[in-house]
């Protein structure tokens, strides 16, 4: 008997009589001021949030923080003039270790926890938003949902290969509970709420 058969047989034998699967109930939520609440939580977990009118303003804010000598990568067509032109390849992912700034579009944000949802097509290469020193995300202000159950209702049966909720910059408090931003991933995360 294989281990698979052995485990499945033992589990089938020992699992109790079938219990009902509850419906996920509608949880209490406040649908007003979504962008305000998203901003408040995102800032509390270490992100910077800018409300902008258009991509020109995004580029303007980023230019104040990054020099032409910095390595900047973005898959957003409107920011093409601002970023490296070479298309990304998974085979060359280790070379992304020198990236200073990555800019990506997010599908949506979640007001209750300040997270944004990204899938791999928005990243180009999966490791990019992690290996970059700084991360910027562009989020349409209308795409902010109240709660996580709303987020999964939006994701539905999407067939992504990889997707991630990102909430603020990489962080750790493993040394005496002192919060340090920039553990292994980006040291800063900037969210542009675009109209």
């Amino acid at each position, binding site marked *: 008997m*294989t281990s698979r058969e052995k485990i499945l047989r033992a589990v089938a034998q020992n699992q109790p009589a079938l219990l009902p699967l509850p419906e996920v109930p509608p949880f209490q939520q406040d649908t007003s001021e979504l962008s305000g609440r998203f901003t408040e939580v995102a800032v509390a977990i270490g992100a910077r949030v800018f409300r902008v009118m258009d991509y020109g303003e995004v580029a303007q804010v980023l230019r104040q923080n990054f020099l032409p000598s910095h390595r900047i990568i973005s898959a957003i067509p409107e920011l093409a003039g601002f970023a490296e032109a070479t298309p990304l390849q998974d085979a060359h992912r280790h070379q992304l270790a020198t990236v200073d700034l990555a800019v990506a579009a997010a599908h949506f944000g979640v007001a209750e926890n300040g997270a944004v949802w990204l899938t791999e097509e928005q990243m180009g290469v999966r490791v990019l938003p992690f290996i970059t020193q700084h991360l910027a995300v562009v989020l349409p202000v209308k795409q902010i949902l109240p709660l996580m159950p709303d987020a999964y209702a939006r994701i539905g049966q999407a067939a992504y290969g990889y997707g991630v909720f990102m909430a603020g910059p990489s962080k750790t408090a493993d040394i005496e509970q002192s919060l340090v931003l920039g553990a292994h991933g980006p040291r800063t995360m900037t969210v542009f709420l675009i109209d």
Partner: protein
Amino acid sequence: MMGAGKTRDHSALADVFNQDEPRVNWHDETLWFIRQKRDKAAFAIPDWELLRETASQIKAHTLSHLSQYLQEFEKNAQANGITVHWAADAQEHNEIVFSILQKHGVDRMVKSKSMLTEECHLNDYLARHGIEVIDSDLGERIVQLAQEPPSHIVLPCIHKKKEEIGEIFHEHLGTEAGMSDPQVLTETARQHLRETFLTRRAALTGVNFAVAETGEFVVCTNEGNADMGAHLADVHIASMGIEKLIPRREHLGVFLRLLTRSATGQPITTYSSHFRKPRPGHEMHVVLVDNGRSVQLGREDFRNSLKCIRCGACMNTCPVYRRSGGHSYKSAVAGPIGSILAPNLDMKKHADLPFASTLCGSCTNVCPVKIDIHDQLYKWRQVVVQEGHVDAKKAAGMKAMAAVLSSPATFKLAGKAGRLFMRRVPLLVNNSFNPWYKQREMPQPPNESFREWYRKNRKQHDQ
């Protein structure tokens, strides 16, 4: 410390931990601070209790349908291009991981947090087979360099002071002597581990949730270390206990709301990564591990322990854990939840753990999936005693107590004798051989028992 601990039980090791009182106080306060952050986060959700109840019921249903969900997960994961392995026990898990590494000619691996690999002693096994493993979670890297196991499932080096970590970094990572600034130490680890991530062809991660419906699995970190390892490597191995399954993707919307609020008081971890398919041309493996879980599933009184989502809230709130430290449990998972999981794996070895509790019930109150932890601790005590796994002294004491409590005449006599001796010869109980006396003053014995008082006053009342 752990080597010596093998033969000593929880209370003996807690005694060692308690010798340094300021440190115990610091440990206690740090964990209580995290418990308070958890409260603040939980109270901010108006229907927190509904959320807990829903999560608990989803897990209860999943456990009642687990064999079907395991097969559904396997089928969907395989359709996504993930290779699924089945390991009956720790040994088989370790062999599977080793065989995958061997197939790719890999002798260095980077690993993010996985308590299951601690349970299986994977690092030791791989080291014996010539594979170097580097733990990439900062806290785990620190205890790995210190050659200690993690003392907490979420906060692996919560028992260490920054000065001690500074010394470890000075010795192993070349920071200047006396440097203990968390900012500087974290930056040093970032540089050291970045080099590791960039040079390892295989990465192992744990699994927080696996979704039967979609064949995907979710890994939660704050540091981004699981993603750095997995996305840079050619081979990603994910190890998971079979109880990590949930039926549908939408259920993540329940569990991800609970997990980090309960763990650290954050609204969500920085990264909640959903792995559904390997990158084209690369491999993704999932190892489904039983290692006693199917046995626990059959124990009606203890089955609910398999609902655990490993948030650590029960540890942060436990007065015994906070004042005895994680290492005193000698188990990969310490604290209240560890004390109901470990006896299932080895009842004799872990017979002391169900007694490492005051049964105050705080663990049960904070558990995000409503596991009846303190009831299970109480029930394990009875099983452990019945199976003869407690030391002779404790067994004799319990037997004597049972005899006294079961006969009113003996109880009366024993009470009288106790009061008499405590008044006349207090040294008989106020001595260091009496463990109750260790941290307490013995009470002043009353002149009469309640029974005597009642009889007298009842008579007066009746007249």
